[in-house]
């Protein structure tokens, strides 16, 4: 029970999520009316989450900063198209993830074949897994998840969005979001278990 409690992210109650959305909506409305402070307020609210979300994909501070900037710019430029009942936060995260994915895709296209091969060798070299390699393996596995599974997992575990909002960001039903989450965690579990097995053999 203690583990479950420790692990459990801060779960937003429906009321809290709704309050957040309503507050955001008020800032958005003020921004639409030309109040620059509303812009700054929303940036201050979400810049950390957007930055870390982007950083998980791009692994580089500068790129994550760039994506954060672009995500906010796009969100604010398109804010007039945001439906009244839509969540600004969910929308912003979705934009950030799309930008990050595009960035990663472009970077992969540019990455030399040798570098990719080297990464492969590192991952295979699991016979000498130490703590850092375990960590890296988990991150690699996270990278290797299908985009929707990864998005659902990222938003639920790291950004602590309720499944309802995760579903909106992922463009699927809440139930589908949960199923994607299940598959993502199952895949990661196999890997973590594998790494732990190798470590115990070693010891």
């Amino acid at each position, binding site marked *: 029970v203690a*583990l*479950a409690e*420790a*692990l*459990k*992210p801060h*779960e937003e109650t429906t009321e809290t999520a709704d309050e957040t959305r309503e507050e955001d909506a008020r800032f958005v409305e003020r921004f639409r009316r030309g109040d620059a402070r509303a*812009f*700054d307020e929303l*940036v*201050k609210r979400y*810049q*950390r989450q957007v*930055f*870390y979300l982007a*950083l*998980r994909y791009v692994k580089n501070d500068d790129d994550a*900063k760039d994506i*954060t*900037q*672009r995500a*906010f*710019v796009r969100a*604010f*430029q398109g804010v007039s198209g945001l439906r009244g009942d839509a969540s600004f936060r969910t929308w912003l995260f979705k934009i950030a993830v799309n930008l990050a994915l595009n960035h990663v895709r472009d970077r992969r296209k540019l990455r030399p074949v040798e570098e990719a091969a080297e990464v492969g060798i590192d991952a295979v070299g699991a016979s000498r897994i130490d703590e850092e390699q*375990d*960590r*890296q393996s*988990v*991150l690699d596995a*996270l990278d290797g998840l299908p985009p929707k599974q990864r998005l659902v*997992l990222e938003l*639920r*575990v*790291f950004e602590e969005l*309720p*499944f309802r909002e995760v579903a909106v960001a992922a463009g699927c039903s809440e139930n589908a979001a*949960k*199923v994607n*989450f*299940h598959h*993502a*965690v*199952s895949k*990661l*579990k196999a890997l*973590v*278990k594998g790494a732990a097995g190798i470590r115990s053999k070693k010891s």
Partner: protein
Amino acid sequence: MSQTTRTRPSCDDLAERLAPHAVADDDDEVAVHVEGCASCRKEIGALRETLRAVKDAARMAPRDEAFWTDLGRDVRLAWDRAEEERTRRRWWGLPRAVWVGLGIAVTGAAALLLVLRLRGAPDTIPPEAGGPQSGFAGWGGSEGHELPMIDEEDIEGEDLDRVLTALEEAQDREVERAIRNAATSIGIDRDAAEALTGETDPYETVEDLDDDELERVLAALAKGV
């Protein structure tokens, strides 16, 4: 007497709901099942262990406050830049319509300018050199009609070139059309009229006319044909 019995969900039935429950602890049906099922209890424990490992692995180094202040400032700068760019584009987007309007607006002015330009020639070019005849002398004063001016401060860099080119082209097209209409209206045949308004600069084309043709074209232009 029939009684509807609700079958209790099996482990397989609930398999896909374990992970969501592991993170949210909000599925009562799963909670009840896990309570009485050792294997699912074990499974949910493993899923939580996995999620914790993932969270640990992905834990990011915390940044100091200055980092966020800078990031906030950079976002603001990016927004300001994007807005400037958007304003510039909007200005250029609107102008498509505006340019058409401007093109139409300069029609008369351009034709008139042409007339005035050629009309001033007798003062400087002697008739024996092929300049226009004195028949043009009575056509109004020397002050021309000013073309609509664009404040250069409103336009930046390459857009200014595009604007000027667009204006120039619009003006040439209008002059061409005016000349073609004028030439046709005074009976210069179609081929000749086409030749007048072909690839060449309309101003040069006008200068290629013989004196008689030129006089008639200008007269037609002056009538506003």
